[in-house]
Structure formats: C-alpha cells, structure tokens
C-alpha cells in the first residue's frame, strides 16, 4: 500500500505568507488547513499538493495574536480560516470573506479551544 509523504515543517508565523507564496508559485494547490490544540498552544497546519506530492507546513501560536490570512494567495482558504476561527477562536487578519463567527453555529463558543473530556472512563489495560 502506498503511504502519504508525512513531512511537516514548522516555520515562524512571520515567514508564513512568504512560504505559502512560494508553494503557489511552484504550482501547489491548497489541500487543507487545520488546527490542533496541544497543551496550551495551537498548531496550525497548511497542506499542499502537487502531482500527489504532499507537503505540510506548521505554525505555532498561543491563540492570542492574529495570524495573517492566506486568502490573498489562495482565495478559497476563507472556508478553513473561518472554520478555525469559529471552532478554536484563532483570529486571522485580512480574510477576504469574514463570517464574523457565523460560519459554524455552535451552542458553545469556540468549542474545540478547550476540550473538556478525554475518554469517558479509565482505559482498560492502562
């Protein structure tokens, strides 16, 4: 079975737009963006593809500072940035379409920012 390339390169938020611009110039398409809460920090992943070559870059943030939007480079990224804003509370500066927190309507604000459970009961064998 063929497996995906899994390389993820962590970069400084300062270099984000330059790096994304580089991917665009080389002809990569934006596959997806997502966020993971790890302890007190948020990891934001950007995945790109060219001819089934899969590349990921990552920035790390405390969630308090604004992250530059990449919608000026990949127009369709607004869907991922608004999703991350609504679920994790990450703020993006300069989004082309800003839903103002109304893309995903949840009972609790930013529900993924502070997960309140990890397993319903002690795991067997652990």
């Amino acid at each position, binding site marked *: *079975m*063929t*497996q*995906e390339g*899994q390389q*993820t390169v962590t970069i400084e938020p300062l270099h984000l737009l330059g790096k994304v611009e580089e991917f665009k110039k080389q002809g990569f*398409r*934006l*596959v*997806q963006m*997502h966020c*993971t*809460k*790890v302890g007190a920090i948020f990891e934001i*992943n950007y*995945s790109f593809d060219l001819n*089934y070559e*899969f590349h*990921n870059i990552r920035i790390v943030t405390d969630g308090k500072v604004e992250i530059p939007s990449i919608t000026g480079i*990949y*127009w*369709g990224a*607004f*869907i991922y940035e608004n*999703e991350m804003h*609504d679920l994790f509370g990450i703020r993006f500066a300069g989004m082309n*379409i800003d*839903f103002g927190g*109304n*893309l*995903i*309507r*949840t009972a609790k604000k930013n*529900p*993924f920012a502070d*997960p309140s*459970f*990890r*397993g*319903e009961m002690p*795991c067997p064998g*652990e």
Partner: protein
Amino acid sequence: MPRRIVVPFGPQHPVLPEPIHLDLVLKDERVESVLPSIGYVHRGLETLVAKREYPEYVYIAERTCGICSFIHGMTYCQAVEQLVDCTVPDRALFLRTIWSEYSRLHSHLLWLGLFADALGFENLFMACWRLRESVLDVLEETTGGRVIQGSCKVGGVRKDIPGETLERMRRGLDGIEREARDIADVFLRDDSILSRTQGIGLLSREDAYTLGAVGPTARASGVRIDLRQTGYAAYGRLSFRPVVEEAGDCHARCTVRVRELFTSIDLIREAIAKIPDGPLEDRPKKNPEGEAFSRAEQPRGELVHYVRGDGSRHLMRSRIRTPTLTNLPPLVRMLQGCNLADVPVIVLSIDPCIGCAER
C-alpha cells in the same frame, strides 16, 4: 435601470435535502456575487475522537457521511495504521477496494437520480435509484449494512467475501453495466438534459485548480486529480485511468460521474479476478503515537483524514477534510454570472454533501 436585490437560497430548498444557505446578490435575473453559509447542523464528530478509544472511532468516522461511509472508515483506518505498527494484509486491501468502488457506484447513482429529479425527469430518477438498489443489495449481502457497512477496522477488515459470492458479484456486474449504459445514453444525449446543463455553471481549469476543487468537480474542468492514482488500498495493482472532461460546465460534471460508473465496474471486476487468499487483519502492536495524514478518493473527491495520538488509546485529534468543504469556494465562482433559474442545478452539480461538511 437594473436593480440589485439579495435572494436567500436555502437552508431549506426543494432541490437539496440538506441545509446550506446562499445569499445571492442579483442584478435583475443574473447572479453577481454569492455568500455561502453552512454550520446549521455541525455535529462536532472530530471532538468525539477524544472520548472514544481509537478502534471504536472507526464507527464514528463512518457516520461522517451516510453515502460514502465506507471510505470515511477506511481512510481513518489508513491514517491510524501508520501509527500502530501493523501491515494490512493484501486480501483486506482488495476487499477495501471492492467495497470502495461499490460505494462509488451507489453514490454516483444516487446523485444521478437526484440530478434527474432536479431537472424534472422523474422516470430517469427512478431508473437510477432502481439500479442503485442492486448495488446496495451487494453491500448488504457482503457487509451486513446497506449504507453504514462497519466492515473496516484498524489493521484490516471484519468480514470476508467467500469465493462463490465474489463470482456471483462478478456476474451481477454485467447486469449493472447493461442498465448503466441505458441510463448513460439518456444523461449524455437527451436534448432536454443538454439544454439545462451545457454551458451552465462554468468553472475554468485554472479556477478549479487554484480554488481547491476536487473529485468530479475538478476533473470536469480538465484537472487530472484522482487520489486512486496514488495506489492506496489495492489501486496500485489495478489498471485505472481517471475520467477527465474539459468543458467545465454542469454537463461535464454529470458526464464524469456517468463515465466513472464504468470505471468502477471495471475496477471491481479486476479486483475480483486478482484478489489473493490470506488473512483479513494484522493486529496493532501498540497504541497510536505521533501524527499521520491519509487521503483517499471519495465519490465527491479527495478526502483527508488527520490523526494524532500520544500513545494512549484515545487519540488527541482527528481532522476530517471532506470534499464538499473544499468544493464550496469553486461553487461560489461557478454561480457568479449565472441566471437565478440555473442556481439549483449548479449547486447540485458539485454533489454537495452537507452531512460530510458538518462533521
């Protein structure tokens, strides 16, 4: 003097059984711009990964979608399998491929029926769904479930398909192919379908690529992206060429799906001919630790599952990027400049699955 008005489309609309809302800014009858809204039924399935043990989460991953559920479960398993040190046996990979292609047949026939219904062609709708029943019967017979199969697990599959059943399935494909050819003739040649779909909802090749279109939506605009070419499951051992059209309109998107019916039938035939004997699973040797991406070609396009584990039986994160989510920006571009009357057909032409998008 032309007037600008905003017409709300959805979240409830006769052409769509699922909630998506579009604010259509019209100049007379022509759409100038579009603002899509989803999020009416967000289910938070991604957070449930922290609540369920990783083998149990396969069932939740499958329930992301009620149409391509098997491929969701398989893609999740593929991601976890990279972290638990196990090698999926060949027979399991072939079985996964067979079920994936039956899922594609079922999904495309469902969409073709809905598309025919949206165009007012009710007997064509019934013909598509009648044929879909025979595909669902095979899924039910071989997995126990018509829509949610539950046959995939981390490390392999739960069920085998006996040799005589495989032979019966192979013979049954002849009938499915014959009926699919009759349906295809109507979709590809009927005047009323051509007049409602040709030259409508245009998406250029460049826009399809840069806006992130995937699946038939991308391939109908000449973008040759089909993740089956990466060779996951048993696709690397089967002969396969992606179906690509160039026109980039609603008819091209319909044509890609019609032609893919026959690709799927060929792939199933070849997989049945080549399926090896052997075990159905390899047991995980540890709990998932680290992170992994897995991609697969769903009926609607590229699906991405991302998982992250810390060595316990509960994963820290599951991320599911569904094809509909990434096909929304291209939809916005398709709708710009179209007539209001064509909006339902264009929206349907991307085969939107809001259930998936609201995982």
